């Protein structure tokens, strides 16, 4: 992974000093609430229902064991003993004291971490494929380009006051595991027929109040031009994006208003001035950053790897876990493993300090001391020897991290919702838990098969409900919490937005609603057909009939 040099270290230390001074001036009364707000937001600090929330950046989701141990220590000393992994591969602390935040940032800086630009109207954390570098379907390892983007976007002076937040995701594989079509900018790294490295540039995707699948603005951008082209996009957006209405300020609205062709023409005209300038990347820079992502010291395959087949045959519970939570790896004898943060009774994405330390130990013992955060809010050990899987499973299970549910209904993606977030219209965590409890039978859960359930507590869509096979959105109706259900959303290169099925429901109804949707699927599915594929084949009507069929309309608002 990327290791800080003297430049990175100095920059982050200076940011800590700057924020310490800003916090001191605020606490001394020299900075007003209004003047402090944009400063704290650009450093990941929100004021929440109970306390400030500090969002720590995990660049493109990659963490070292030492960094995770530090997060555990901070959780213990400054929070209530846990942290929450987000759908943008970051980590949130929900209970720090404002006055302690500069000290927390200093502790983060010691391990090469920060909270720069994790909120506010600026370029946010760069995200990518959580299987980067190990996925068999990968054409280009996106990590070096992601790190180059991280550096370029960090404290970029021109784009510190954008109309709205700006999210960039990057992928280099045949399958899109980074929701690139639903970001302000999505980038697909690939090689053309001549073997040259380039990027497909997608602009104007996003979720939120106005969900849109992004548009291809450039089919193949030579990689050396990545930063100049992005500067052109950002400059057009910074100058012409709407600033009069918070809900119409994202770049997707500008692209829609201008039309894709006119937007592209503006970007290309701007880029014409920038192309070839000093922001153009060089072979030397790519080589410098790529050297940080060299493959680890993989061992050659050995006879011991054969043991896995016997272990799987001998232990059905292990086999069930391996079937869901273990993934293909490009290197013979290795697999990637997902540690599930979706155990029933625990808020999705939450991890205690003790569990963080266990995961750090597991990463060191089994996966070269590194791990990744997925945008589905789980943790990945990317480089595990096949012969270690049984040992890893036993240890993960003892720590409550081996629920065999990756990609299944109980692997719920969920924002913190109304229990924590001051933006939320409705609670999301209790709904997630009630549904998980309804589907606690593992045989039934596995029979249902792949099903993405996403829950957002408000239109800001942090739970990515628009791309859930089943999406749940918390809405406020006259002060009461209701839940709107959509079907047929999907992530990946064929990303689709879900469609709302009808009137919304009360929280207590939600497990039954999901049961009926699943029942309709089971009654109609073809062999090996996923839930979402059945939805697309037969349409929403049978699902509506299954849910609303019995004259219950009276209770719906």
């Amino acid at each position: 992974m990327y290791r800080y040099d003297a430049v990175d270290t100095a920059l982050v230390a200076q940011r800590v000093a700057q924020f310490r001074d800003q916090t001191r001036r605020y606490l001394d009364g020299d900075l007003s609430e209004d003047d402090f707000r944009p400063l704290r937001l650009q450093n990941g600090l929100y004021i929440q229902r109970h306390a400030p929330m500090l969002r720590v950046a995990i660049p493109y989701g990659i963490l070292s064991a030492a960094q995770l141990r530090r997060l555990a220590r901070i959780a213990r000393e400054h929070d209530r003993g846990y942290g929450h992994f987000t759908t943008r591969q970051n980590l949130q602390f929900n209970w720090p004291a404002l006055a302690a935040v500069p000290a927390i940032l200093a502790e983060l800086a010691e391990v090469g971490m920060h909270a720069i630009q994790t909120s506010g109207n600026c370029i946010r954390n760069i995200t990518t494929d959580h299987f980067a570098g190990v996925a068999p379907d990968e054409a280009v390892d996106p990590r070096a380009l992601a790190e180059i983007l991280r550096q370029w976007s960090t404290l970029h002076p021109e784009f510190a006051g954008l109309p709205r937040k700006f999210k960039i995701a990057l992928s280099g594989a045949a399958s899109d595991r980074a929701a690139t079509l639903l970001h302000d900018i999505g980038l697909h790294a690939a090689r053309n027929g001549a073997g040259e490295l380039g990027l497909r540039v997608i602009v104007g995707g996003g979720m939120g109040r106005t969900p849109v699948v992004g548009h291809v603005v450039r089919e193949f951008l030579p990689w050396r031009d990545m930063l100049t082209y992005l500067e052109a996009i950002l400059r057009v957006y910074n100058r012409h994006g709407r600033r009069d209405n918070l809900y119409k300020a994202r770049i997707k609205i500008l692209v829609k208003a201008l039309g894709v062709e006119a937007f592209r023409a503006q970007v290309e005209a701007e880029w014409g001035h920038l192309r070839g300038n000093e922001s153009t990347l060089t072979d030397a820079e790519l080589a410098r950053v790529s050297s940080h992502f060299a493959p680890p010291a993989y061992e050659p395959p050995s006879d011991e790897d054969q043991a896995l087949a016997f272990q799987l045959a001998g232990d059905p519970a292990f086999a069930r876990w391996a079937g869901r939570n273990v993934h293909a790896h490009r290197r013979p004898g290795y697999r990637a493993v997902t540690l599930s943060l979706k155990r029933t009774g625990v808020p999705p994405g939450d991890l205690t300090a003790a569990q963080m330390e266990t995961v750090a130990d597991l990463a060191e013992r089994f996966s070269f001391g590194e791990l990744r955060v997925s945008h589905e809010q789980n943790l990945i050990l990317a480089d595990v020897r096949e012969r270690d899987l049984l040992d890893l499973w036993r240890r993960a299970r003892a720590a409550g991290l081996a629920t065999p549910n990756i990609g299944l209904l109980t692997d719920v993606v969920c924002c913190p919702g109304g229990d924590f977030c001051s933006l939320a219209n409705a609670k999301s965590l209790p709904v997630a838990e009630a549904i998980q409890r309804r589907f606690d039978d593992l045989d039934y859960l596995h029979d249902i098969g792949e099903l993405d359930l996403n829950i957002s507590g408000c239109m800001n869509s942090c739970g990515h409900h628009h791309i859930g096979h089943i999406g749940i959105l918390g809405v406020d109706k006259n002060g009461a919490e209701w839940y709107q259900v959509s079907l047929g959303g999907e992530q990946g290169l064929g990303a689709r937005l879900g469609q709302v099925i009808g009137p919304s429901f009360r929280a207590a109804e939600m497990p039954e609603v999901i049961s009926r949707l699943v029942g309709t699927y089971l009654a109609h599915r073809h062999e090996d057909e996923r839930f979402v594929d059945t939805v697309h084949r037969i349409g929403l009507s049978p699902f509506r009939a299954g849910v609303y069929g019995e004259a219950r309309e009276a209770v719906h608002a």
Partner: protein
Amino acid sequence: MPRQVIRDGQVRDDTWEMLDPREGESPETVPLPAGPLAVPLAVWEPRREELLARATPLGVRLEPGDDPARIAPDLARLALVCIHFPRIADGRGYSSAWLLRRRHGYAGELRAVGEVLRDQLFHLARCGFDAFVLREGADPRAALSAFADFTEAYQWSADGRGPGLRGREAHAGEPARG
């Protein structure tokens, strides 16, 4: 007390007269005071000939939505360009400054005015501003340390600073344009 401006890392008394037509005053007819005078673009465009005929230094003030290209042909005649920040969060002026310096080659004083506070100064300077009038009531002397907040930069900008010798030294492009 005269207006204070931060320029070249020092706090100075401002010698410029800032024309700000009041409600009801027409840009075409508003009286132009004598001496070094900066006027809004809305006054500059209709009164350009009259202003250029004066023997005293001239400046233009741009609002965030004003395209800097509109004054590009006159930049050699201007000693001051002010860019107004009506709100801290409105970052359009950063791009205006970058364009004036890099695209249009403006070399005179480039001043940030309006809702400008200490914590924007580092980024403003990187985008090409070299003069700053803080929000009324803010202490410019207490803000001077902001220019030293960072010694490193991760990206090139209009101040000519960039990531330095981190593998980009081999770049053979044309550095002065943008």
